[in-house]
């Protein structure tokens, strides 16, 4: 679905959209709309379908009530997006106390004189609709209501609010009356950048100059399986419905990624939810429903200041911006190459808190990637390897061992003092924890590893273990490994010396032990003196 091209949000190919409108009473109707429509026009279209006068409807989208004069194009809707319609509840009736919405059965004629909802007169209307009756009121700007809903409504008619301090000049300026929309460029910029960065962008004016627009980016697993422009959305943390209004706009990633940071008023009946929960949708495909969400790649940004990639030096967009103090920039292609090359050398870092990850390629402090979905960019096969190795490193970090039987590699966390380890949930191999050869009594003999201790099922024929070991398909491989490698004295990773001096540095990222190929102990000054180059 190429309704929106990647990276060009407003260049719609077609103006027609089919969206769903859900009411706070659970109805769901579908509406065909044109993107040039205003919210007011949508209300008029909806009124007969919801059997409610247009004036009594409030349209809520992405945590905001939309003002009547807003054009739908500004909302960044996709096909099958969901708008929320709320019927306004009368202040007067609430004042009467006992009358809950379900008990009110008044019938009133509607007087649609206030088509644009901007008037100063109060028009009170009620409407019957099988038990889901709402009593409604178009609030006036002068009546001094304190209700939050009414406040919002009033703002729609009042002069534009003073500009938000972190608001960027953007193409959508007519929406100030309801603050920033989540889809506004200013929202993206506010969340992705520090104030200093925002200022520098403004100074550079590249935001206008390059035609590059800020975006959120997500990794869409199904169906796109790629990096896509993301849409920030919000729902009630309790009932998971979208009919809620935010009490303030999100200002940074923490607001967005940590649930409960921002309070909101949920409009769903019987829901007392007060907290907003943000999520992302992929813009690359037509949404398949409310569960169709994607993970935000918070390091990926549109390259507004046109920073060249630190590796290829080309300027492209989007780019990965690392979290180090210098905020080093890498293009997506180089980021993938970087990850894959680090993965191939098994140089990912096992971090206690963050798991198996990478730092900025310059190696800056505090630059470890916190969201593993960034590694999805490496492709399915590499990501699978990444996950497997990450698991292995986690097992090793927890004091465990990996079953050395070829093709097994099961992670086992044995008792502290136990030297005899059995691969119980894997291949059944029983081995010595120290030398990773078949289990043996007495000292380990590094030169002569026992083959796997094949234990036949009862009743089957017995095979001499040493004979069986020699007939293994992998025997040639393991023999080659035994002949050409020496184990790292610390972690026992088989290591091949393909030239150079006798000073070895263990290639396993979490080990890195410096050892001597000749002594097979830690590298010392004596080794340098005696046999550095053999």
């Amino acid at each position: 679905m190429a309704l929106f091209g990647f990276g060009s949000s407003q260049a719609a190919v077609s103006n027609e959209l089919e969206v769903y409108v859900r009411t706070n009473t659970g109805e769901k109707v579908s509406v065909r709309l044109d993107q040039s429509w205003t919210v007011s026009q949508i209300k008029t279209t909806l009124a007969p379908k919801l059997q409610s006068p247009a004036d009594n409807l409030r349209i809520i989208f992405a945590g905001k009530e939309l003002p009547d004069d807003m054009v739908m194009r500004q909302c960044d809707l996709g096909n099958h997006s969901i708008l929320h319609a709320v019927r306004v509840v009368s202040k007067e009736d609430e004042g009467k106390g006992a009358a809950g919405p379900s008990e009110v059965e008044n019938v009133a004629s509607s007087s649609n004189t206030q088509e644009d909802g901007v008037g100063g007169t109060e028009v009170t209307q009620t409407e019957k609709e099988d038990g889901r009756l709402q009593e409604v009121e178009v609030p006036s700007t002068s009546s001094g209501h304190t209700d939050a809903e009414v406040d919002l409504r009033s703002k729609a008619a009042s002069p534009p609010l003073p500009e938000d301090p972190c608001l960027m000049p953007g193409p959508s300026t007519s929406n100030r009356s309801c603050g920033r929309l989540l889809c506004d460029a200013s929202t993206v910029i506010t969340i992705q950048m520090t104030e200093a960065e925002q200022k520098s962008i403004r100074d550079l004016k590249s935001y206008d100059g390059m035609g590059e627009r800020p975006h959120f980016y997500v990794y869409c697993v199904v169906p796109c399986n790629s990096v896509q422009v993301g849409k920030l959305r919000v729902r009630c943390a309790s009932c998971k419905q979208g009919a809620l209004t935010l009490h303030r706009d999100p200002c940074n990633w923490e607001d967005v990624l940590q649930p409960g940071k921002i309070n909101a008023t949920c409009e769903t009946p019987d829901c007392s939810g007060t907290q907003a929960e943000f999520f992302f949708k992929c813009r690359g495909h037509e949404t398949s429903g409310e569960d169709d969400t994607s993970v935000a790649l918070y390091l990926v940004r549109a390259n507004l200041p046109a920073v060249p990639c630190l590796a290829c030096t080309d300027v492209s967009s989007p780019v990965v911006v690392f979290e180090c103090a210098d905020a080093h920039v890498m293009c997506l292609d180089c980021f993938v190459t970087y990850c894959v090359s680090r993965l191939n050398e098994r140089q990912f870092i096992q971090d206690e808190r963050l798991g198996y990850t990478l730092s900025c390629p310059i190696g800056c402090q505090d630059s470890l990637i916190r969201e593993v979905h960034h590694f999805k960019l490496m492709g399915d096969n590499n990501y699978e390897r990444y996950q497997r190795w990450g698991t292995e490193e986690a097992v090793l970090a927890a004091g465990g061992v990996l079953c050395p039987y070829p093709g097994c590699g099961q992670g086992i966390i044995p008792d502290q003092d136990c030297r005899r380890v059995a691969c119980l949930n894997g291949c059944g191999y029983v081995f010595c924890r120290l030398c990773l050869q078949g289990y043996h009594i007495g000292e380990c003999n590094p030169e002569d590893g026992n083959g796997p201790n094949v234990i036949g099922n009862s009743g089957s024929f017995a095979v001499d273990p040493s004979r069986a070991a020699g007939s293994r398909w992998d025997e040639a491989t393991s023999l080659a490994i035994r002949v050409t490698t020496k184990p790292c004295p610390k972690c026992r990773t088989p290591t091949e010396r393909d030239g150079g001096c006798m000073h070895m540095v263990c290639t396993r990222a979490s080990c890195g032990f410096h050892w001597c190929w000749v002594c097979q102990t830690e590298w010392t000054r004596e080794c340098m003196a005696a046999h550095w180059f053999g």
Partner: protein
Amino acid sequence: MAAGLPRRIIKETQRLMAEPVPGISAVPDESNARYFHVVVAGPEGSPFEGGVFKLELFLPEEYPMSAPKVRFMTKIYHPNIDKLGRICLDILKDKWSPALQIRTVLLSIQALLSAPNPDDPLANDVAELWKVNEMEAIRIAREWTRTYAMGN
């Protein structure tokens, strides 16, 4: 330029040609754009002054994710360079970062000639002498420079 050569290598090569580093020349091989013939002039005030040192530099497939491979072709008496011309320089090993370039590598090698570091040696005998009897070590370095790095 060969097809499939990363733009970064092309750009670096162009810049090396357009704005060469003083005292260093690096020219790609005609048949292999990843292989550079490098010539470094011995820095003034060092025992290598007056010498012209040939090196080879190769950009592996993974470049710039992995470091270039650099080796002295001219014999040199230096505590951080062994008899096969291999160089002990952190940025060529674990301190490599893709933000570094051919240019920065060559500058570092030039700096290493000006300031040998006998505490992190690759050529152990040279390093020992450099520490025990620096005068003698410098004398030998001058002699080697005259013998191997001058006149051709």
